């Protein structure tokens, strides 16, 4: 071997400090509530939240469904909206990046809709679709499509112009350049969009459920707030955060697998 592997030893303090930080965070949280610095009507201790979680696994009271049902409803809505936004947003963005006609026809409308926060659509979707699945999927779709379109568009636009000229020189048609050069070179940007879109979808899912829903994690949070049960609110927040993080990790793994051969 021409080189020796150098092992960099992590100093002990760099291992201890993060662990200590997390532990003290939970201890302070627990202590604040247990010793009465913060009244129990405002914040629930971690142990209390854990108890509530165990109870909520099997008990539909007081908000009408067990935790698994809430989570399943949310994941279903988020997933449908997310997939729809990918299926429509990515091809649209790619086409906008390469074909001038598509760009000219779609961009003004897209630019008009883009600055509206997706939550602002909630009243209209309630008018149009009621408070069922469709309305929420629509809002999540609106939320997810924006980063998909932008990233695919920028990805195509950032294709190395030298390569495009070379392909032209070798007599490639417009369509061939688009499919065989621009799309592969835009892929890393497109995959970046997957993560961003997921985060957007997840945020707006909670927003959609806060206002118009009868099950789902966002609904759990709202009901907890209305019933003055901070343990349920915190439980809902933790479930939302946790499931979002898990899905993010899964997408990251898929991305690594698919993009293994492409230099980032």
């Amino acid at each position, binding site marked *: 071997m021409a080189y020796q592997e150098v092992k960099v030893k992590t100093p002990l303090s760099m291992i201890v400090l993060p662990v200590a930080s997390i532990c003290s965070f939970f201890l302070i949280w627990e202590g604040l509530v247990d010793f009465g610095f913060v009244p129990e009507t405002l914040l629930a201790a971690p142990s209390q939240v854990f108890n509530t979680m165990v109870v909520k696994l099997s008990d539909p009271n007081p908000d009408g469904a067990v935790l698994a049902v809430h989570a399943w409803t949310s994941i279903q809505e988020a997933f449908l909206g997310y997939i729809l936004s990918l299926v429509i947003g990515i091809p649209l963005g790619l086409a906008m990046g390469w074909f001038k006609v598509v760009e000219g026809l779609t961009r003004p409308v897209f630019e008009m809709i883009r600055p509206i926060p997706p939550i602002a659509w909630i009243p209209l979707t309630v008018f149009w679709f009621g408070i069922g699945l469709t309305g929420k999927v629509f809002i999540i779709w609106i939320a997810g499509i924006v980063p998909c379109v932008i990233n695919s568009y920028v990805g195509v636009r950032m294709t190395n112009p030298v390569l495009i000229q070379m392909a032209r020189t070798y007599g490639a048609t417009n369509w061939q350049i688009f499919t065989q050069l621009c799309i592969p070179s835009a892929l890393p940007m497109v995959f970046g969009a997957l993560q961003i879109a997921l985060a957007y979808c997840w945020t707006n899912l909670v927003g959609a459920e806060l206002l118009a829903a009868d099950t789902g994690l966002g609904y759990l949070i709202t009901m907890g707030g209305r019933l003055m049960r901070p343990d349920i609110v915190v439980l809902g927040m933790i479930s939302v*955060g*946790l499931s979002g993080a898990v899905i993010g990790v899964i997408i990251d793994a898929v991305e690594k697998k698919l993009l293994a051969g492409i230099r980032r």
Partner: protein
Amino acid sequence: MNQTASVANETVDYGRQREPLSLLRLVTNLYFLYSVSLLSFFVIWDRVAEYHLLGDALVRPHLVALQLYQLTQMKFAGQNLMGHIWASTQRILVGFSIASVIAVPLGLFMALNKYANAIVKPVFDLFKPMPPIAWVSISILWFGIGEASKVFIIIIGTFVPCLLNAYNGVRLVEPELYDVVRVLGGKRRDEIVQVCFPASFPAIFAGLQISLSIAWTCVLAAELMSSRDGLGFLIKRGMDTHKPALVLGGMVLIAVAAWSTSQILGLVERKICPWKRSIENL
């Protein structure tokens, strides 16, 4: 007319080659396409509303404009239109300034000091995946339905991207730049002040832009849940009294307000850090 110049041994042609005017060229003209797109958007909207294809829940565009005009003339829930716009903008400004003033220096400090990083990062990572809107309920529990709870949500929402971008901005500075300063005899202080801060400014501003759009989402969510003024209140009132014109008017106003604040931030950015390399983006 051909204007040519020689740049780095290459002859560059600055002259425009005029193609003959043809129908195809006119149809594929970008501005022509833009106007076709906008026009057809409004016409389709108008027709859909006119023939009640979506029930009575969509109104014709000119009725939305009329509604907005009426709001400027009379008071609605104690405020005229400017009052509502200002109520929302004020919340954004307060929350956004507080969050960025705390989060950006904290992010810079975390990137420069590994002990601060080791302490703050794990706790921060716990909060990161939680959508800011999930905090709405608990902030109402804590702060009631007044201004404080709305500002709190905006701070929560804008804190994360501000801090993350400042942090990543410093960490992604090209190491060669540090080497240059060291070769020229700079100390650690020079490295930070002369290299780190200027090089991380574009990333920080990108974070501020993201924060701003999240701030609008947050203020809207907070106002939809509980408020007596603001743009979210207009939309909510339109929803409760089933007035689509009011809802659509609120959406238009939010879009305009969000767009103009981000334009202003962009202007400030160009003023403060003109060295930002701009990629062609939307």
